[in-house]
């Protein structure tokens, strides 16, 4: 097994119950958890709670004068009424991108896991390697590919798919394409992990029993790869919904997602209570969706 293979199995939810503890070792798990747990508590949980508090501050304060805690639930109403189109757009773009990732990623993961044989490792490396050319550099490359005087637009104009002044860059399609592209590996790896575990003989047996490959797929492959599908969609949807780079580089303000709004509220407008309210809303919406989705799909182990 290669190193890559292990990254592949990373997200596969698969846990055997731990053996019962031996006497005198009851403290050990807590010692092992302590450093990482503290780190996550201090630098993730505490800020999240503080974020929730900030979101309820009086918005008329400022960083210099300080903020007063006034339990300003109005911040949420204001944030929603001003930016609901951005929320909707984020969820929509991320949803479409996730679906596209699933449609593209499933055949690729299946091909690697079940068909690639000795090219398996090479293909896995090909999925992971793009990570290393920076995210931004790749997105800028898409900007080149999609640019108005690039070959792609030229070809599409020539064959009439785009009008003579039709564009790819600065459209919603470009943003969704960028999101799909950037998060595709996060879909492929967990899918690969669950498809790789699939026993080839199981498929043969299914082909034998169900005769049609389509039915065998629906009855055996798909159900058995559900943990991978769930993990993959989560790992794709979550970062995509919060992303703002793709909208910034490949879109226009008309394509801005909630990430762009939060970013500018924090770093440009310096409106902390509103930025916090927006952040917390986004987190709450995503977590709510995640929990519903995970419960629905019956793969709680991912948590």
């Amino acid at each position, binding site marked *: 097994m*290669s190193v890559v*293979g*292990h*990254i592949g*199995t*990373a997200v596969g939810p698969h*846990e055997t*119950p*731990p*053996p019962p503890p031996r006497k005198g070792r009851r403290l*050990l*798990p807590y010692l092992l*958890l302590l*450093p*990482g*747990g503290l*780190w996550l*508590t201090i*630098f*993730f*949980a*505490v*800020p999240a709670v503080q*974020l929730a508090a900030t979101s309820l501050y009086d918005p008329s304060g400022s*960083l210099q004068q300080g903020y007063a805690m006034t339990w300003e639930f109005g911040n949420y109403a204001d944030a929603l009424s001003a930016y609901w189109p951005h929320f909707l757009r984020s969820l929509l773009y991320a949803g479409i991108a996730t679906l596209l990732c699933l449609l593209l*990623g499933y*055949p*690729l993961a299946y*091909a690697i896991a*079940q068909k690639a044989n000795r090219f398996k490792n090479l293909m896995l*490396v*090909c*999925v*992971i*390697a*793009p990570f*290393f050319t920076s*995210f931004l*550099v*790749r*997105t*800028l*490359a898409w*900007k*080149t*590919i999609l640019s108005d005087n690039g070959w792609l637009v030229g070809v599409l104009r020539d064959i009439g798919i785009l009008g003579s002044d039709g564009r790819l860059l600065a459209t919603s399609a470009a943003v969704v394409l960028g999101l799909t*592209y950037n998060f*595709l590996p996060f879909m492929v790896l967990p899918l690969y992990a669950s498809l790789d575990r699939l026993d080839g003989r199981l498929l043969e047996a299914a082909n034998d029993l169900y005769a049609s490959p389509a039915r065998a797929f629906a009855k055996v492959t798909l159900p058995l790869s559900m943990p991978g599908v769930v993990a993959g969609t989560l790992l794709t949807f*979550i*970062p995509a*919904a*919060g992303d703002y*780079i793709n909208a910034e580089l490949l879109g226009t303000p008309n394509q801005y997602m909630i*990430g762009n709004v939060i970013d500018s509220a*924090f770093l440009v407008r310096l409106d*902390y209570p509103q930025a916090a309210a927006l952040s*917390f809303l986004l*987190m709450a919406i*995503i977590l709510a969706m*995640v929990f519903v989705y995970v419960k629905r799909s019956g793969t709680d182990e991912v948590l």
Partner: protein
Amino acid sequence: MKLGRWLSDHWVMGVGVLVLAYLFLPIAVVVGLSFNEPSSRLSYDFNKFTLDNWTNPCGPGDMCDAVVRSVQIGFIATVAATVLGTLMAFALVRHRFRGRAATNLLIFLPMATPEVVMGSSLLALFVAGGVPLGFWTVVIAHVMFCVSFVVVTVKARLSGFDSRLEEAAMDLYADEFHTFRKVTLPLVFPGIVAAALLAFSLSFDDFIITNFNSGTTVTFPMYVWGAAQRGIPPQVNVIGTAMFLIALLLVLGTSVRRRRAA
């Protein structure tokens, strides 16, 4: 008939290769542009072939400093996150204890939280605590979001671990320490390496969280972002290509070595 059969056997692979091509399209552009002499600062079109960018990769002012800084941050964050995450994974897979569900949640939540939210809330913490932003705040942030991925990766390797091997070691006079040292660690090591690799790539590539917590410190993604407003120097593509090649060699190298060893 024959063609139909061939198609039905190979269409999945065909689609898979097409998807890989999609993954590689922008990388091809990056590689191409690394040999480009742009006509103007803001032009991203291929103009003229040149090797100048490769012979002079550190041409544009602070770019190489940013790359070095990114590697340093990536290295420190990887080591720390790998150690912390591996310990947690061992606790979760090997021990039964109270608070397991809460721990799992604490590990899962960072993966389920958008980067803007993590970046901004951490910024608020640093500001409130009067911590000056810079190199170390970036490291802290990177360790935070890498730990969860390390835990998940190592956990996957550990839960497939045959605990009878450890029992066999103990049966053969290895005490707890030597059992860990001679049997557990060597067998879990590939999972730890994979986790470290993942952590490094996540750290090296991160822009959003870094952007919130870096102050005036410039990492490579931050440099690219800044340059994107003014016009990207073609050397950025050299770095992109080089990193890609290094990663490819590294991963292929380890997998070939492992195969040899196996």
